[in-house]
């Protein structure tokens, strides 16, 4: 999502936000892969995807954009692209918070807890910032869908 926005947006604030999100998340993915490696664990568990969170989620992470939504994003441009990107990314971030909170309830590892705590705090703040940006792009001429 961020890559699509980065390549197609005309708004430097959206581009900056997308770049920041992309770089940070890739690094954090790397950190978590590294821990699994050092712990001698496989990158994919044997249980059903998302089973760790307890209740049935049909294998989907909360807040993930569907392939159809992503395809739609690549067809948009201008303020429509920016608004749709913000809408999807807000939902994506809001999905990340329950995941991080779920691991905080389950893990004793201090380094896992530190990362999860930082993710909760920073993603909540980014959601607030994105909601402000979304509101600024929604005027009387282009009302909320």
């Amino acid at each position, binding site marked *: 999502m961020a890559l699509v926005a980065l390549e197609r947006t005309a708004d430097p604030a959206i581009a900056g*936000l997308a*770049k920041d999100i992309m*770089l*940070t998340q890739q690094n954090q993915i790397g*950190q978590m892969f590294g821990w699994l490696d050092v712990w001698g664990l496989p990158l994919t568990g044997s249980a059903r995807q998302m089973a760790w969170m307890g209740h049935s989620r049909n294998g989907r992470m909360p807040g993930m954009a569907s392939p159809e939504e992503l395809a739609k994003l690549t067809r948009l441009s201008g303020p429509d692209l920016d608004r749709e990107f913000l809408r999807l990314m807000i939902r994506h971030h809001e999905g990340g918070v329950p995941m991080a909170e779920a691991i905080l309830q389950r893990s004793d590892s201090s380094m896992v807890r530190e990362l999860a705590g930082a993710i909760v705090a920073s993603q909540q703040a980014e959601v607030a910032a994105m909601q402000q940006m979304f509101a600024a792009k929604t005027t009387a001429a282009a009302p909320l869908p």
Partner: protein
Amino acid sequence: MVRQQREERRKAFERQQRQWLITRIAFGILGLLVVAGVAYGLFRWNEDQQNNVRPEGVRDFAYAGSDHTASLAETVAYEESPPVGGRHAAAPYWQNCGYYDAPIQNESAVHSLEHGAVWLTYRPDLPQDQIDVLREKAEQTYVLVSPYGDQEAPVVASSWNHQLELDGSDDERLDQFIRTFRQGPDTPEPGAACQNGVGTPV
């Protein structure tokens, strides 16, 4: 005849002795190398353990992250000089890590702190050999170095919500600060980049 045989046996024996000696020397050298390797490994591990300690004299603060200015034109009146956190420039205006020989914008440096960088600032009158020490530290990842006119101490080390005043760059607490606080537990956005932002280190 017998003497010849005895002679040959003696030579064979001496040859065998020589081979044993060579073998023993070789194993001795191998053993020494192993010991040397272990000793060196321990030395480096101990060096890291020495640095992996919170240095004395660090001041702590309690700024929350993600408070962004509307544009680069907006400047923030920070309480600390140099700043250790608070309101700062939005993405992608974090300051690329590395060494700078001219002052950088506070609001960008603070964004780099939010990403886990350690910012080492030096008073412009710091002796060149000490500046060179800081410049070398800037070759490490997530280290930002720049001159700062309005600070009292010759060298100040800052990370998000932590700051240490130093008399010079030869203080052993400098490495301890970097080790403890770079990408440390108070980093609001661990893993965020200190490249692909703004600024070109020299």
